[in-house]
């Protein structure tokens, strides 16, 4: 048979064309063309939209929408469901998780999934407008699951990072690539998992991979061209400020971790980004990195224009428990003072003066803390930690922390913080190992408790006083949303999505979503109708934060709730 006998199979087509889900035209309305820095700065004035990862630069995860409130929340139900699904073999098949925050701009939702997926959806119906899929290598090194925490949107573009450490700009109308930059070294074990933040003309991203012994960093790129603007390392080289906190000899600094794997916040008045940094590497063997190990486990204030570090506050000096401080830095004001609140994996709530990093208060927010103690004047006293080779020790909280990466919310209306809490311990024994590039660098055997794992959602005032607590049989492992309807929303690992009275903690509404929650809910409005959206899909690093749920099914749905359409609306926005 000759070559000419072959049937012409033609050219392979985009899989999305065969999905039956792409809306007519495949073009999103130009809602992001005029999404400028000034508009993002004033995001709270347009509560119908959710314009940044935390909703606003201050990280409060608070919306002034109040159509859904304590009086009527019991009547909300699903308005639409987007089922992402998967086909083909993905990276981290067993550990993918739906951890994103949706972004909503004038009726269009931009959403990322795991394994390089990004979608534009009609925010009213859930209909897919376009989709983008980045090819993610199956062998990419992922510490904690095949996850992505969301996109940033500005100037007609959608920005996101990929598991193989690219930062990509898509055309917000078509989903086509505009620019694509590599900002991490996958051979060294670096990856990308966070949602970018856009400030002025910069899109800013951080690196993941601390468990592989890398040197954590933030990078800034020009929004329009993708040209690299600055890189800020979170572990100083010898001779740089902070390098005295690392061994003078050897290369511990070069493998020191301190990754910026979650999105920071921004204050235009100080012109500072506030970014939490990850654990030092190796996680549990402090003997090879004597010293405080700056700027790991720290809140770091960075000049947004230059990338220069202005101040830092280290929450766990010389960490040997895996207590990243990467989580949110919530900006708020009290008595005219510009403050920052941070709920750390080590179990303590830190309130700092965000103009200079001065300590204001430190308060424990979880019941069981045995690793050590931090006094109110900031003195850290370690008590239990893996020290002797092969000798097991047990401590609370475990390496996932009293609160993992998932976010607390702050309501300016009540003045309270709403915190998802994990009360879980772990047993660890030091197992020293030689560093090898691209190989996990923990230096311990760790088993997280399966029994005795509980959790709660708590409200705290700015002084750290607990105002109410809702107890759960399982740790609370999903971000919280607060609204002006005096509501707090939080999901459970077992699939329930809950609404609470923000003032009393009373459970007012619950919906079983079919898979556990490990994401960040948002709210938005279209034509006066308020929606609550939550990505649902259990998974990720479950062995670290809730091994008792390792057998739970994965999900891949975004579920959007609203009041019935015939309900008269109030407080239209």
């Amino acid at each position: 048979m000759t070559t000419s006998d072959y049937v012409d199979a033609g050219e392979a087509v985009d899989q999305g064309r065969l999905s039956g889900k792409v809306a007519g035209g495949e073009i999103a309305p130009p809602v992001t063309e005029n999404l400028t820095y000034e508009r993002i700065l004033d995001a709270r004035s347009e509560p119908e939209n959710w314009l940044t990862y935390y909703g606003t630069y201050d990280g409060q995860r608070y919306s002034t929408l109040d159509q859904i409130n304590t009086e009527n929340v019991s009547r909300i139900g699903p308005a639409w469901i987007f089922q992402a699904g998967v086909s083909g073999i993905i990276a981290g098949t067993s550990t993918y998780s739906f951890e994103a925050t949706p972004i909503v701009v004038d009726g269009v939702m931009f959403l990322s999934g795991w394994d390089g997926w990004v979608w534009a959806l009609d925010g009213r119906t859930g209909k897919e407008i376009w989709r983008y899929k980045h090819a993610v290598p199956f062998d990419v090194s992922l510490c904690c699951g095949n996850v992505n925490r969301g996109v940033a949107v500005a100037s007609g573009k959608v920005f996101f990072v990929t598991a193989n450490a690219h930062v990509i700009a898509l055309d917000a109308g078509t989903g086509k690539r505009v620019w694509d930059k590599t900002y991490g070294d996958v051979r060294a074990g670096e990856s990308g998992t966070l949602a970018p933040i856009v400030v002025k003309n910069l899109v800013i991203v951080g690196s993941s991979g601390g468990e592989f012994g890398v040197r954590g960093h933030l990078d800034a790129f020009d929004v329009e061209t993708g040209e690299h603007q600055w890189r800020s390392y979170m572990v100083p080289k010898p001779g740089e400020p902070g390098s005295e906190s690392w061994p003078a000899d050897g290369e511990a600094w070069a493998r020191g971790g301190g990754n910026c794997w979650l999105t920071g916040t921004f204050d235009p008045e100080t012109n500072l980004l506030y970014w939490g940094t990850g654990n030092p590497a190796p996680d549990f063997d402090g003997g090879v990195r004597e010293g405080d190990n700056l700027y790991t486990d720290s809140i770091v204030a960075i000049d947004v224009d230059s990338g220069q570090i202005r101040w830092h506050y280290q929450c766990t000096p010389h960490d040997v428990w895996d207590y990243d401080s990467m989580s949110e830095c919530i900006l708020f004001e009290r008595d005219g003072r510009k403050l920052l609140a941070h709920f750390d994996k080590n179990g303590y709530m830190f309130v700092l003066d965000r103009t200079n990093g001065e300590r204001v208060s430190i308060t424990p927010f979880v019941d069981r803390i045995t690793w050590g103690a931090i006094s109110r004047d900031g003195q850290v006293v370690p008590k239990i930690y893996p020290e002797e080779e092969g000798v097991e020790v047990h401590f609370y909280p475990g390496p996932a922390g009293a609160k993992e990466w998932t976010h607390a919310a702050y309501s300016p209306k009540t003045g309270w913080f709403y915190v998802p809490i994990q009360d879980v311990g772990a047993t660890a024994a030091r197992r020293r190992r030689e560093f090898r590039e691209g190989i996990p660098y923990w230096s311990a055997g760790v088993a997280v408790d399966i029994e005795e794992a509980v959790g709660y959602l708590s409200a705290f005032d700015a002084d750290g006083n607990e105002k109410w607590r809702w107890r759960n049989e399982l740790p609370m492992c999903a971000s919280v949303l607060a609204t002006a309807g005096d509501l707090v929303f939080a999901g459970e690992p077992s699939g329930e999505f809950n609404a609470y009275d923000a003032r009393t903690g009373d459970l007012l509404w619950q919906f079983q979503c079919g898979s556990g929650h490990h994401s960040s809910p948002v709210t938005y409005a279209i034509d006066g109708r308020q929606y609550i959206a939550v990505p649902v899909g259990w998974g990720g690093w479950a062995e670290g934060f809730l091994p008792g749920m390792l057998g739970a099914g994965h999900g891949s749905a975004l579920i959007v709730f609203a009041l019935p359409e015939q309900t008269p609306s109030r407080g239209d926005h």
Partner: protein
Amino acid sequence: MTTLNDRDALLENLGLDAQNKAALGKLLNTGNIAQASEGADGRMKATVRINPDEICWDPSILVLPHGGDLDLELINDDQNTHCALLPSNGDKKFIWLVNHSKGRASLNLDGPGYYWYSSPSGNDEGRGLTAVIVVLGDVPPEARLDRPDQPRPF
């Protein structure tokens, strides 16, 4: 015990190198390996085919010298219809491959690493039509960490 040199013979003796002998399908990764060629413009070219009754991509491991654009020719010499779902930046690429057909796919991969593809029809994947594209190389110099060279695995 067996050695690397015995591998092909052992697979044949055990009946793991073909469908419906020892197992129902052909064991994954028992096929061939090949390298893509590279043109003067940096675009890469390669051909993969499905031979009659082998239920296996040939090569089943395709190696690219670096990330970039690949022009892939796909040939189905089998007497059954198959298809291919391939990784590419932007969206996955899909093509039907009816009996004795030839098609094309233009892929963009930014490596390094390896990427699975398959024929997602029936359970072609489980029976053997799963293969990988391996992208060699390093990330660009500007993306690498500022630190001394570090020891790599032995």
